[in-house]
């Protein structure tokens, strides 16, 4: 892994067993992600995009292969180390936002800091600052149900970014949003990317993928089949 690389993936496989049947969601993925890169993953449904993202996010463990990061190698890390990795190294956002319904916007964002080294007394301010930065100054004390989809996704982004991660993993972040909101969300990701953050985004929207990323990778049947230049230089 050289200095510009932040993630290096080699021969990554993931097998799911459902009763007697086996599904190879990933069949040998090799990929290296540069620091500060905006990477898009496209491909048909079931091609293994989410599986790859979840493995990079440390939510799941590979069947074989390695994911090397500056914090350590996923596949050899202990469950505790992996938890710390999730807390500090990566931030994740999802198509269905995954906000905690009974927590306010601010409380949702604060939740991300419970598992970091942030001082408990600083949590509220860090969270409200981040939400304000993302244009949600008036929504701090709203619950997810009282927010629009775009607002909910922005809260989710605030929650992912408040702990200052190295990499942002976005699994179809615009999948539930209309065109304007989709663009707004992508702008936020691009913004963070311009400040040096690394983004890996899964999307079905090829236009967005081309417009916002440096590279677009196409997956099919658990492998990366194609790589094209994105709109960013």
């Amino acid at each position, binding site marked *: 892994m050289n200095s510009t690389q932040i993630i290096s993936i080699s021969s990554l496989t993931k097998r799911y067993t459902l009763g007697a049947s086996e599904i190879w969601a990933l069949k040998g993925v090799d990929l290296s992600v540069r620091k500060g890169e905006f990477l898009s993953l496209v491909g048909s449904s079931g091609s293994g995009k*989410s599986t790859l993202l*979840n493995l990079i*996010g440390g*939510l*799941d463990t590979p069947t074989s292969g390695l994911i090397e990061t500056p914090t350590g190698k996923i596949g050899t890390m202990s*469950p*505790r180390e*992996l*938890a*710390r990795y*999730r*807390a*500090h190294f990566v931030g*994740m956002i*999802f*198509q*269905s936002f*995954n*906000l*905690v319904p*009974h927590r306010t916007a601010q409380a949702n964002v604060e*939740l*991300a800091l*419970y*598992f*970091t080294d942030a001082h*408990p007394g600083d949590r509220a301010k860090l969270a409200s600052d981040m939400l304000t930065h993302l244009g949600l100054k008036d929504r701090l004390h709203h619950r997810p149900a009282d927010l629009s989809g775009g607002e909910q996704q922005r809260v989710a982004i605030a*929650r992912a970014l408040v*702990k200052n991660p190295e990499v942002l993993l976005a*699994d*179809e972040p615009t*999948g539930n949003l209309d065109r304007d909101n989709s663009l707004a969300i992508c702008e936020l990701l691009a913004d963070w990317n311009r400040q040096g953050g690394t983004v890996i985004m899964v999307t079905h929207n090829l236009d967005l993928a081309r417009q916002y990323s440096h590279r677009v990778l196409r997956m099919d049947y658990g492998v990366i089949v194609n790589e094209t230049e994105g709109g960013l230089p």
Partner: protein
Amino acid sequence: MTVKDVLGMSFGNLWRMKTRSFLTISGVIIGIMALSSLLSFGVGMQQLASENFELLELFTSLQVLPHSVVRSEREDHTAADTTAPRVVMLNDSVMQDISRIPGVASVYPEDVFSARVECRGREANTSVYALLAQMGQSAPYSRMKKGRFFSSDSARETVIARELAVRLGFKQPDSILGQEIEVVTASMNPGAALPMFMSGGKVSPFREMRYKLTVCGLLKSDGLDEQPRQLIVPWITAQNMEKISFRSAFDILSMIRKGGKGYSSLTVRMKSYREFEAVRDTLEARGYRTFSIADQFEEMKKAFMIIDTMLGAVGMLALVVASLGIANTMIMSITERFREIGVMKSLGADDRHIQLLFLAESGVVGFIGGVVGLTFGWILTRIAAVVIMWWMEKQGQTGIDVFAMPWWLMLASVAFGVGVSLLAGALPSRRAAKVDPVHSLRHD
């Protein structure tokens, strides 16, 4: 995650689900209420018994009785010892011997004989106890119901039990104080042997002797004494009475055999209860037979243990039912917060964090239930105590509080509530920790 975070989240979750939390906690409240009030009763009764015992100094005294020691029953016997029973005479040298045992404060002789008591034309048969006047300085004789203990060993005075006064026809037992009673004893009449023979048994070989004594004190009777002394007379006064003194036929046998005369029994007082067992064991090892309330109390303690266990079991049953409620609530909570668990994991929680959060929640349920249940249990025992006292006083007795809530019982009750709740939450919390974040976060 800090302790404050964990507790904050637990309280927050319980507060959010008010109705359900209320119902779950109610189960614990009822369980702890039952447990603490029932045990309060058990402990109260036990305390009452031991307080009374201590008051009467029954823990620090024992009785030495004349006895034949069958050596073969002892463990440390030798073949030569097994042949004949050994007679232990309770005489002055034995008294000396006993008084030198470390821990013994004093040794008093006691004599018992049967007599008839007459007063104002009424009569009653009773055992008469002869004691030294100095016994009046310590319990139970230092606390008379009315009047005082006799003034000297040779005073022509007597102390009488309430029951005997009643039997002698005194409706107000107190009024027997200052009255003169007659103690009628039987003694061998050597001169009657011939007339008895001649009359074919119509003339008694015994002779009645009458002694006038003034009642100077009325004994307290509390029903705790195994054999309440009915009539107590001064030692010398009793010695001067002509009578057949015996506690058992064995005394007579030993008298005949040794030609000597022993006391019916000796009362040994210990310096403190700590010496009790050592002194008793020493006495037994030396071949004396002992009798003490303290020994009886050990038996009683065992009975109390059984009662407490039974009462506790009833309370526990209620708590077990409550714990099922807790487990059910927790499992429901996992289903509801399935996605939230995944979110927390994706944010860096590991299995132990999740487990801790769920355990803490059941712990909080147990703590609130424990504290409130204990409070309710205490209120319940107070109400019950008032009712029982009222009832006892109505029955003409002195009302006593039969409940006790010592600090350890309070602490144990709350700890039990928390403990049982944690146990109930153990399995659900482990299950919560095992939630697969990928599964729970999947879009649906």
